[in-house]
């Protein structure tokens, strides 16, 4: 399809696009409107207020940021997500390098086995993970969460990064080998700098794993308030009686909108990755 469509076709296209655009944006837009509405009701019984900002107040944001432990939750989430990012980069890059650069018995078996193991949903193994973390004294601490998230991102990121390492020509490392470069130097000095774009994806995936998870965070760190992470804590707000919807909407804006922006940034990487077969990278 290289010639532009006819006039009627273009109009149909634009109508579909505008409708789908409204559907795609409305839930987010609705929440932004609700966050600036006075009072604690997400509903407004005035129709205009559902689509246009009639009144705007920063009250909900002020209450959320100054009078609730919300900033602490966000800080906890940031700490956990950043630690997951760093740890997963360290673990994943070294494993991916080994799987890409060394030929050893059981290499392809190991890669397939990893995918097979990943088929066991994290939610089902959660009770066992809870027990084992309790045994090591990590239950209810952020460290247990960080370890669990890092392992959660392991398989996909290792596959992805291994695929990227495979595309880097080995000639440079061979040149290094002749000059007496060992595997560790060749990994740190040659392969890693070349794999920078793929590292960015690994980092983003690690960060999002820590930032946006609900199930693990709500069962591994159930209490106290000062330890909670942003997403489960915000969800917890909504299950109280007399839910402060306005504050929930304000918190939603602070937590979800940066996530969406991060994802939009991730999009162009995903686009090139998906066509190559999902995890092949």
């Amino acid at each position, binding site marked *: 399809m290289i010639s532009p469509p006819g006039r009627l076709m273009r109009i149909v296209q634009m109508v579909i696009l505008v409708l789908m655009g409204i559907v795609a944006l409305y*839930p987010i837009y609705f929440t932004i409107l609700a966050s600036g509405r006075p009072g604690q009701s997400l509903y407004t019984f005035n129709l205009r207020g559902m689509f246009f900002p009639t009144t705007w107040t920063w009250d909900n944001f002020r209450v959320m940021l100054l009078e609730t432990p919300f900033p602490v939750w966000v800080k906890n989430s940031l700490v956990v997500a950043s630690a997951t990012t760093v740890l997963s980069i360290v*673990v994943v890059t070294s494993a991916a390098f080994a799987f890409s650069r060394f030929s050893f018995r059981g290499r392809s078996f190991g890669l*397939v086995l990893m995918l097979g193991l990943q088929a066991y949903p994290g939610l089902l193994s959660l*009770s066992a993970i809870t*027990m084992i973390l309790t045994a090591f004294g990590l239950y209810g601490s952020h460290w247990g969460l960080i370890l669990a998230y890092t392992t959660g991102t392991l398989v996909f990121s290792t596959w992805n990064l291994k695929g990227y390492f495979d595309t880097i020509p080995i000639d440079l490392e061979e040149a290094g080998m002749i000059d007496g470069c060992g595997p560790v130097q060749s990994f740190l000095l040659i392969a890693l700098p070349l794999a920078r774009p793929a590292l960015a994806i690994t980092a983003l995936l690690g960060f999002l794993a820590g930032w946006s998870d609900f199930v693990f965070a709500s069962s591994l760190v159930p209490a106290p308030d000062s330890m909670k992470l942003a997403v489960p804590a915000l969800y917890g707000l909504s299950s109280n009686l007399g839910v402060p919807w306005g504050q929930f909407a304000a918190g939603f804006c602070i937590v979800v909108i940066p996530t969406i922006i991060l994802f939009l940034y991730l999009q162009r990487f995903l*686009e090139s990755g998906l*066509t190559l077969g999902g995890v092949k990278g």
Partner: protein
Amino acid sequence: MVGWSGRRKALTILAFTFPTIIGLVIFNVYPLLLNTYTSFTNNNKFHPYPDCSAGLNNIIEPYCWSFFTNAPKGLGIPFTIVEPLFKNYQTILGGLFTAPGVLSILTLIGCLLPILIAYQVDRRFERGLERSLPSSLVWLAGIIVSLLLLWLFGATAWNKMIDTGDFMAVVAKTILFVVLRVPITFVIGLVMALIVSSPGLPGKTFWRVVLFIPWAASSVAILTSLVWQFFFRENGTINQLLSIFNIKGPVWLADPLYAFGIIILVDVWYSYPFFMIAILGAISSISNDVYEAAEIDGATYMQELRNITLPLIRPALLPAIVLTSITAFQMFGTVWAITQGGPTKGAGVPGSTEFVMVYAYKQIFQLNNYGTATAFATIIFIFLFSATLYSLRMTQMTKGATA
């Protein structure tokens, strides 16, 4: 060449992969083993703790490890291995292997047979030089006969199958959800991708970003779904809009059928961008020469779509379809935030939106039925494991690994 060969090489490989192996053993392999072991015991809220002197307990149960200091031991009766060994599995699968269970499943498969026959007939026509019937007619006939059979026998067979026990009630609903959700998502994603990629469209990047937003929001599905839940509440946005036209909207989430539809709607909203992006990528990799040649020959838009675009993007889309099917099967956050698995007919009966993961979550964390819940998990794992391996073979994703 230090470390590239011989003994040093083995050590180097071990050093590079050690953290990964440890992580997988602790967080993937061990839970798998423990769950499988638990599925043979009567571990539940009445038998919460192991008897450390019996069986494999002192090896596999964290409660029995010597460095596990603060164990709340001595509450309740310790759990034991059940007699007979597969009792939990029998409880879960229930009456599936009795006459009515098998009969109902066979009936449902029989109802779907015409579609399969249509597929085979179409394939045969494809191979032959001339076709006596157009492909769309064959498919249409197959689908109509199937729907007719389903309309006649489907409901009774479905209800009988659901009645055989929790397992079928939950798994059948989940499969129905996947079967409905994936094609809808695919079609919407395809249409949007075709529009966004159409030449000369103003604001291409803008539309691409806007239409992608739902998928970005799906990473925090648990929060975004709460907003969707408000829309469908009794006094929610939808019912307010309806009240303008003097229609009293129903209590959407209290109706089993509506609730199921809403879950599909919200999940389609979350996931059509995935297909859109995947198809956009595949379309952009098709060379323009093909279209130029077709246009010189006077091909219409629909001809180009059917004979060039769709066949050429198919290989890239198979993995995407398989991956979304597997993720849709495991969907949790959306349902949890919107219906929590309800509405249900009564206590203990899985609700109309109680999909596999929601059921497992409820059984484990709310009812503490560890024994039967882990038996359920094991069956699901065998299913997902084979699906993953099959998809690997089908899409040849492992090609890179063996090369």
